[in-house]
């Protein structure tokens, strides 16, 4: 049987920062500092991934022919 991947792990942040975050999330939908930190990190990581993927020449030709045949492009 395959060993299952651990779903969560621990990172360390300064206690002062932890306390600030704890204060900040009071009255919000976040129920823990971990939840908030995960949210912020996910947002940052996603931001870094926004770049365009190029088409190959072969793809372009094939796609262009079909789109033209269907009337999507002139």
């Amino acid at each position: 049987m395959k060993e299952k991947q651990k779903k969560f792990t621990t990172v360390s942040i300064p206690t002062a920062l932890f306390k600030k975050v704890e204060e900040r999330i009071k009255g919000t939908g976040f129920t823990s500092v971990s939840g908030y930190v995960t949210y912020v990190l996910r947002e940052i990581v996603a931001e870094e991934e926004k770049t365009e993927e190029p088409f190959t020449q072969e793809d372009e030709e094939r796609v262009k022919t079909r789109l033209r045949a269907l009337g999507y492009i002139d």
Partner: protein
Amino acid sequence: MPRPHGGKLVNRVFKEKDRKNAANVAAKLEKVEVSKALATDTENIAKGVFSPLQGFINQEELENVLNYKRLSNDLAWTIPIVLDVSEEKAKALKEGNDLALYFQNEPLALMHLEEKYKFNKEEFAEKTYGTLDMAHPGVTKTKNMGNILLAGKIDLINELKGPYDRYKLSPMETRFLFKEKGWRTIVGFQTRNPPHLGHEYVQKTALTFVDGVFINPVIGRKKKGDFKDEVILKAYDVLIENYYLKDRAVMSILPFEMRYAGPREAIFHAIVRKNFGCTHFIIGRDHAGVGNYYGPYEAQELFEEFPDLGIPPIFFKSFFYCKKCGGVTNEKACPHSEKEHIIFSGTKIRATFSKGEMPPKGLMRPEVSQVIAKYSNPFVE
């Protein structure tokens, strides 16, 4: 344009020149005949509609999706894409081997069977649909599934043929199309109904802030009483022709069996439209809902859990016709009392057509009404 979900558009379709050979290989393998819904899922995986999935998910991914609404690599993913078979069929299949998926006796895809596993139907239904009520179509469907799930990558041999293929574009095609049109920002609109003026105003309000609107009706098995696919497409054709700028609107279909999973499905719909190249996605009232299983804006709330989705939702509350304003408006813009409002109720519109009448032009464009009225029965039976 945003990168596809997970960074890379999946393309697992055999090239034309290799299809015959792949079909010959399929003929020698253990066969699994799949339903229309599973065949559609297979094609969607192969063409990148479900990127980053490259096949049907394994047990670990299923547990992740059900419990965390994410894949094991932390990517948002809310709807389990699984392939079920009977226990009897599963006995004939060996992990590590290839098998052939067939649809209507034609080879559909090759699949490398990575894992076969039992699953808990109750947990699957409760976590996906938020209920165990058998009146929910997703719960009934889950109960009727085979007891064993097959996991593994697939490679599509033959594309599915249907009556609406001229409207069917792959994510690679829509991405190219948007680029050709010079659109940098695109809002996706999911629909399973012919357009009334409320839909049109939602789309056009969003369009004001982006370069183009991508209207993407879901085509596939629906509930009894829903509008037929052909009616929806013809209605949109006439709406776009008469009321949209050609360079600002594109319509193509999404072959997919609605799960009616409400909030979870709303996230999933957004991911799919991100793969098509949309930068934004419209979420209205009771998105992908059925009956009263989900709160009217529960789908909108779930987006708060996904800051990393990579496709920001645009939330709308209901638009309505205000007799005093003399036009379509919404609660943020209209100061008049509810007595002056005519709500765009799909149920009422369906009832009007059922009686052989047409809705007033303040609710639906006359051209759209006329298209629908031409059908003696525009509804799924």
